[in-house]
């Protein structure tokens, strides 16, 4: 019992102030992760919110796949600097370098997953609230073309685990993804 409690109990209070560097370090310590997600999308062109579910796979530092299983099968893969989107039998390939908007959006999520603060700060003004057990990261885009469409990203989590990613668009749209980790 003591052994199990040790890392949580007295050790925590002995730690120095908790902040961005500590959060990034704990995020960076995650090498691989897989999870289920549910996503709720609203947009001005939509008359009703769009719900979708699927799975996420992450491998440090720059592989991320998001496979949507319902309502439409779709596969989104980020590999290094390249995004491949397979949907409805069509394959779209983008280089992140191509479009600063796509680069910013993808980097916001991937940089958070990887705990890569310099990379995040290249695209966003980063601010953190909360504590290690319940934190909230606000990312405000620096790039003008991204700022025109996205107000910001709000990423919530607990410890080294991300629980929701909320992308708020300027046109009133919003995409909220809830993440439930698979048992390791």
């Amino acid at each position, binding site marked *: 019992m003591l052994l199990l409690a040790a890392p949580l109990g007295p050790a925590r209070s002995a730690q120095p102030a908790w902040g961005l560097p500590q959060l990034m370090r704990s995020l960076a310590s995650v090498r691989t992760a897989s999870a289920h997600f549910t996503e709720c999308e609203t947009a001005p062109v939509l008359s009703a919110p769009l719900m979708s579910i699927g799975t996420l796979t992450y491998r440090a530092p720059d592989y991320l796949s*998001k496979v*949507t299983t319902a309502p439409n099968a779709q596969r989104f893969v980020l590999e290094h600097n390249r995004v491949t989107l397979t949907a409805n039998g069509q394959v*779209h390939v983008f*280089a992140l370098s191509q479009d600063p908007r796509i680069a910013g959006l993808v980097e916001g999520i991937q940089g958070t997953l990887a705990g890569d603060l310099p990379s995040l700060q290249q695209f966003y003004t980063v601010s953190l609230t909360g504590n290690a057990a319940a934190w909230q990261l606000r990312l405000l885009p620096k790039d003008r073309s991204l700022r025109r469409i996205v107000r910001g990203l709000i990423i919530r989590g607990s410890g080294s685990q991300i629980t929701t990613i909320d992308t708020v668009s300027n046109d009133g749209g919003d995409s909220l993804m809830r993440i439930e980790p698979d048992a390791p």
Partner: protein
Amino acid sequence: MRRRGWVPLVWLVSLVACAIIAARTRYPTNMGDFLPHSASMAQQVLAGQVNGAAASHIVMLDIKGAPAPVLARLSQALAAQLRPQPDFINVMNGDAKSFAGVQNYVWRNRYLLSPGVTAQRFSTAGLHAALQNDLSLLSSELGTVMGESLRADPTGETLGLLSQFGNGGGPAMQNGAWMTANGNAALLLVDTAAPGFDLDAQQRALARIKSRFSHARAAIPAAAGAYLQMSGPGVFAVHIRNTTKSDVTRLSILALSGAATLLIFAYRSPLVLLLGLLPIAAGALAAIAAVSLAFGFVHGITLGFGVTLIGESLDYAIYLFTQTARGEPADAALARIWPTLRLGALTSIVGFSAMLASSFTGFAQLGLFSIAGLAAALGTTRFVLPLLVPQSFFAAGAEPLGRPVQALIAHRRAGRGVVALGVAAAFIALLAHQSGMWDQNLLNLSPIPQAAQQLNQNLQRELGVPNLRFFAVFKASSAQRALQQSEALAPVLVRLVAAQELGGFNLPSNILPSDATQRQRQADLPDIATLKKRFSQAARGLPFKISAFTPFFSAVAAARTAPLLTPSSLPPALRLQFGSMLVRHGAAWVVVAPLHDVTHPAAVTRALTAGGAHFVDLNQASTRLLHTFQNQAVTLAVVGSVAIFLLLLVGLRSLRRAVAVAAPLAAAVAMTSALLTLRGGKLSIFMVAGFLLIIAIGSNYCLFFERSTPGSPGWPRAVASIVLANLCTVAAYGLLSFSRIPVLHDIGETVAIGTFLSLVCGAVLSTPSNAAPTP
């Protein structure tokens, strides 16, 4: 000799006429004009790519020597300064403006450009499928970005078009500019307004880039250590021209002062030294005029190279001045040496006239240039020089120059043995030469330093500039036909890409569809009422707000009646690409479509042939061209040599005497080629030209030797004149061999070695042996 007062007058008038023609002549430097008139399609593509194609406008830049954020700021500042300049039609550094032109064109004209626009796509079922696709895109990471364009483009035409327009390449962005992956260089890609061969404009553009960069650097703190590197066809061409200019200036000043010193020593008269230049000056003017009249233009290469071909006319004056005996009038001396001089000049003229038959415009021009030039120089020496030489001129200092060769002639029996041994050794060396005598690597003929070639390759890789080697080429009777054929070829190429036999391709019809296709697309778009009706049916059951799609309805309505796109609708970067893919050729139009990453040339060739197009491999075409060039050069040299021998036979009316003149030349050429290929060296095409020059110049030496009588009163002066002529030639061509330009270096080396060997072999083999040798 009879005085003919009218001759100098005619000479002067013709010279003025030639000068007027020369002043009004065009001197183009395009490689294409130097190529065969009957060039194959592949060769024409090659010439086009070398000359004016889009690729020749490219300048690649990198900025190094500062931290990444500083480099990015420099890149932005430089791009901002270059964009308004008329010297540049496209400046890309990765920022939004880099792509704005193409993106706007695609966005505004999506319904005329997109192959996705079909009656089926705009049916209720087609729209339903598109909307379903949109739903899944909306829920992806791209949804947020798509949201903006979805209302105006729910069928996703732009997305497909942008990837078709090659909008997927380019280096990675860092701090708002293209950077190498390691962040130590900012990268830019510039298209100059002028094509690569317009060297003056290129030089101006490059200077502007440099000065704008210095401006930008001065304005940005912490950028002091940053530096700029440039590469590309125009950069290379300007570099070559500047190197050639500086080499030619430097070396010709040295050569001139060397030869002038020798001649002053021999003549002791500056006036006579200047008179000695008259034959070649008159020859050059007459040659330019003749070529200009016959061809309508004189190629830059013809001009530069032709003057070296008629260089032997400098020797004519040397023979006349040096062989004039003390107290002898110049016309008497001329009358004495005229038969030899005439035969010597005729051998060269006959030797060079073989070039007239060449299919290479450049060779034919060179042939005519040297024939006209030598004839005019010979006429000037014959009719004009004797009138101008000061009375009682005598080359006081010449005789001692001939003494070493006099000694050689005295021991010519032994000398023959040495020459025979030398020739035998040369033949053994040539036979033992491994792996072919000819240099096949075109790059070895390039005067670009290794480091600059390396930089070029690195920048091409970093910037993703495709290495243009493979092309699909076909002809059509009109531009519209060409575009229609291009459209027909698209599915063939798409299949090849799908089969991974081809990495990618560009077609002119992707940038600008044919009028017929654009009209078809307009016809396939429904009118606004029908579209709205179908759209609401298509959206049934899907969570879309139909009212949000008004921009789509009005865009389709506008496209139905929009004026058709023409080349003038294209943004500058695309117009440049389009112009180099669809080229007017006489009355016909030729499509030259670049193919990238061809992995199965055989399969691609088969598919293209079935599709009515040729597959062109530029490397193969240029290798083949080089082969033809080499073969022709060798054939011309052989035919020329045979013609020279026949002329000698006729002129000397004796086989024995003809052999006595020809044998030393053959020996000299054999030994020269052995020396040049020593240590595994290869013969370049330029050296063959050098061989012809050895024969042209050396035949004069041998003729004078053959006519001489050792021990006679005129003999020492005759020997001295040959030695003086050779010393000047060796000085001039020997210095040329220090040039960094391969063509100058190769010819210089070949001619300097070869003419010296001709002198030695001629002295030993041509001098008659029946006369008693005198020490």
